[in-house]
């Protein structure tokens, strides 16, 4: 995935969050790979935000309350 056309400030913010939380678990040599993938994630987010949806469109997986029957 290319990071071209992705808002780099947003990528910086997301990368900073991941580095802050998980930096000790990540090999320093792999930070570039993490950032590259975060660029892809940010680009996906931009593409999703570009589509306008009516307010009433719900997530496709609709939560259903559970009531156990016969010991379920």
């Amino acid at each position: 995935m290319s990071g071209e056309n992705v808002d780099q400030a947003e990528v910086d913010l997301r990368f900073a969050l991941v580095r802050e939380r998980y930096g000790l678990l990540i090999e320093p040599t792999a930070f570039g790979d993490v950032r590259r993938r975060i660029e892809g994630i940010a680009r996906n987010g931009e593409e999703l935000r570009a589509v306008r949806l009516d307010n009433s469109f719900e997530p496709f997986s609709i939560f259903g309350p559970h009531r156990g029957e016969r010991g379920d």
Partner: protein
Amino acid sequence: MNDLVFRSIRQLSELVRTRQVSPVELAETFLGRLDRIGPQLNSVVTVTHDRALREACRAEEEIGRGEYRGLLHGIPYGAKDLLAARGAPTTWGAEPLRSQMLDYDATVIRKLGEAGAVLVGKLSMVELAGGMGYESPNASFTGPGLNPWDRTRWAGGSSSGSGAAVAAGLAPFAIGSETWGSILVPASFCGVAGLRPTYGRVSRHGAMALSWTLDKLGPLCLSADDCGIALAGIAGPDSHDPTAARRFYMYDGPVLPGRRMKLAVPEDAAAGCGDPGRDNFAAALDALQSVADVDEVKLPEYPYEAVTATIQSAESASALEDFVHEGKASGLTDRSGLFGPYPGKAVLATEYLKAMRLRGVIAREIDAVLAPYDAMAAPASDAAPPVATSFDRSKRGRGDSGAPVSAIGNALGLPAISVPDGFTEEGLPTGIQFMGRAYGENAALAAARAYQSLTSWHECHPADLV
């Protein structure tokens, strides 16, 4: 050639039913090939000798008593090693889980056992079904899955062993899983039939979870007809899996519909393919004209790959969180284990929810596109099998697995089957997929059977393994 190898389930079952071949003889044939050829292809994790012979003996006794259970009775099969099977390790392809023992049978294993099928092996796979975003085919503790048609090439992922084992005649059929391409791509690369059922058609109880709303289990076989037979053995409701649909499945093959079929082909369906894939797809469509009306259709414009990728990233980051936090990811084979778990943590909740909302919109619009047709045809993969030792997945375009149809089909949980549609100049298989509406497996299978009735690609097998 051992004349039991490269026979369809339907052919083998007739031999078993009429007691011309015993289930024990069948099991021993395929156990021997798994032992001998499996390691050459890195396609096997565990050959389940004891269990296979126990199940085969039982099948033989039952059939001898006239208690024939059906087409899968006494038929050997292999299972991707993300399926729990009592008595054998369930490794998920991952070095840190080499010794993981799950002391129960996944529902598909249980159902196949009840149908009388015989588990002969647990088959290799890309570690964690590709959950770290592997960048090299060498992403399993069993080594890169090698292609029976050319052992320098990749078998595809993540159901590498399932595709290779069927193509190499190590099992008449195998069970694989698909989150995004993991059945159709190995089927295409290995020149076999691979069926991705509708989401929820097959229980996932006992299967590793990578992405709860994308994961599907399905068969890889020598023909589309065999995929229907195998699906009938594993489909159905399951109280252990709340996502399993409360629908029963009945395969309606092998007879073809007595009418012309209607197929849709997306505009530029083969645009992302290399020459051999594009040419073979065009030839397949030409062949299909004799049995089907083929219409070009325009797909509505949505960011299909962003939807599927966002859902998969967020869900897999959560599904594998404990594995990662226990420090196990660094023990994976592919270097993506060093960094792959973490980018998914950067998916925003609003992005995941937007993808899920778009999923509903897209589901309705694509269903409307598909409704007038038996199936939609498209290339199964954008590329021929790459060289196993040098392929860098990080440099591939987004959606190397038949985009955008693969992204649509997986996001929407639609059934699709890949069957071979020719070879490259180097003798490597390519595939065509037929995707149906939700719960439309029989229509997709009928289209694939119709194609296979016109062609003989599925009757080709690697010369050194015949």
